[in-house]
C-alpha cells in the first residue's frame, strides 16, 4: 500500500465523520448550549462562593443532586475580565429556587437555580 493512499483513506473517513457530526448537531441545542446561553452576560464571579449574577440582577446558585459536585466551566463572549469557573455550593440538597438550567449525564444531575424560590 502506498502511504498516500493510506492517508487518503484516513482523511476521507475523518472528513466524512466530521461532516456527519456537523449535520447531526449543528441545529441541536443541548444542555451545554442552553447553559452557555443562560449565563451569557455573567459579570461577577464570587470566588469560592455560590452566587454569581446574571446580567447584574439575578442571583443564582449551582447545586448538584449527587454528592459528587462538579463545577461546569463556562466560556462566554465577555470572559476577558474574569475567571470563568462557577463554583458549586458545598450542599447537596435539591435546589429551592427556580431552576433556570439543568443537565443530566450518565452519572450526575446538575442544576442552576435562582437563590430563592419565586
Amino acid at each position, binding site marked *: *500500500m502506498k502511504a498516500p493512499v493510506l492517508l487518503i483513506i484516513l482523511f476521507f473517513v475523518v472528513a466524512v465523520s466530521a461532516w456527519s457530526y456537523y449535520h447531526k448537531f449543528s441545529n441541536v441545542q443541548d444542555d451545554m448550549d442552553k447553559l452557555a446561553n443562560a449565563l451569557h452576560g455573567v459579570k461577577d464571579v464570587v470566588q469560592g462562593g455560590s452566587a454569581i449574577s446574571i446580567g447584574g440582577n439575578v442571583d443564582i446558585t449551582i447545586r448538584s443532586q449527587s454528592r*459528587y459536585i462538579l463545577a461546569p466551566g463556562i466560556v462566554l463572549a465577555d470572559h476577558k475580565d474574569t475567571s470563568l469557573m462557577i463554583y458549586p455550593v458545598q450542599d447537596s440538597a435539591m435546589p429551592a429556587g427556580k431552576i433556570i438550567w439543568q443537565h443530566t449525564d450518565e452519572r450526575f444531575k446538575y442544576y442552576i437555580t435562582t437563590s430563592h424560590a419565586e
Partner: protein
Amino acid sequence: MQSDSKHILYIGLGIGCISILYYLLLIPGLPVFIIAPVIIAALVFLYRWLNKDYHPAVQNNIWRMAILAIALVMIADKADGLVDKHGQWDAWAIWNLHAHYLADPVYWKNMFRNLEHAHPDYPLALPATIAFFSRLAGGFHMLMPYTLHVLIMLCIPVLIYTELYRKSLLVASLMLLLFINNDMFITQGVSQMADTMLAFFFLAAFVCFDYAKEHRQMIILTSAFLGLCMWTKNEGILLSLVFILFHAKVFVFEWKRVLYGIALPLIALLVFKLGYAPANDLVSRQSAETFNNITDWSRYEQIYRSWMDTINQHYKTLKYLVVLYLLYCLLRRKLPDSRLLLILTCLAGYFMIYIFSHQDLEWHLFTSAHRLLHQLMPVTVYVFAHKFAGASGKGAFQLIRL
C-alpha cells in the same frame, strides 16, 4: 519501518509540534500571523527529516487497503452513534475550556485562576492544538475538537495495522475487529478528552522503540513520543518514567539522541509546570494520612474490584489473552515479553496512585479507572498482535495469506 507507518507517526509528531510551538510562542504574545508560519516551517522540516530515507512503498494487494477502509468506516459509523455534541463532561469543563482560554492571546492566563475544579495543572498538548486551529479559523468551533479526536482515534488502529499487515494480514485484520467491537475505545475516542491522545503517543513510543535496535535514529522518535506523553497528561509522566526505567541502559547509552527527541516537549512542560501551573492536587495534598492508606487493605480490595468490573465489562478479550499468556510463560518457565511487563508496571503505578489518593476513592475510581485502562489498551493490543504476527514474519498466522 514502513513508510505508511511513518506517515501516521508524522501526524502524531505534527500535533505535538503544533501544541508545543503554539504554547511557547503564546507566552511572549506573538500574533497568529507569526506563529502560523513558524509552525508550518517546523512541520515541513519535520516531514523532510522523517522521510529523508524515504523509498516509495511497493504496490500491494488491494485487499489490504479495502480491509482498512472498511474497518475505519465501521469505527467512524459507530463513533457517530456514540458521540455527544460537546464530548463528555470533562471535555466541556476542562479540555475544551482550556482550549478556549489558550485561544485568547491576551487573557489566556485567566485559566490558572480556576483552581477549584478546572485542573489548570493539566498539560496542554490537546488544548493548545485546538487553540491554534481556533486562532487560525478566527474562533472556536465544535468541529475542531471532534475532528482532531476522530483523527487521533483512527490513527491508533491504522498504526498497528500498518505495522502488522505485512507480517500477517489475518492478525492485522483481527486486531481491527477488536477495535471495531470495543465500544469503550470508540466512546473514549470521541469523548474529546486527552486519554486517547495519550494512548496514541504511548503506542507510537512502543512502535518506534521496536525499531531502535536496527535504526538508532528511532531512539529520537521514541523519546519525542515519550515527551509528548508527558505534555499530554500528568499520567503520561508516569508512563514515560516507567518506559525509560525499563530501558534505562539504552536511554543512558544513547543520551544524546534521547535529548534530541525529548528536549522540546520537556522544555514546554517545564515552562508550563514551573512558570504557570499550580501544583497537582494528587501530589500537593499528600500527607501522613494519605501515606497511611498503604496499610488500608480495604482500599486494595476496592480498587481491584473496580478494575475487574471495568475490565470484564470492556476488555474481556484482552484479559483472557494476558492471563493465558502469563500462564503459558509460567508453564514454560520463561519471562513474559518485557513490553507486557512494562504495561503491567504502568498498571501497578496507577494502582498505587489510587492507594495514595486523597479523593473519595469510590468517586475517583468511578470517574477515572475506565480512562486509565483505555490509555493502555492500544499498546496491549499492539504487543499481543505483534507477538502473534511474529516479529520476524514467521508467526503462526503468517501461514494464512490473502
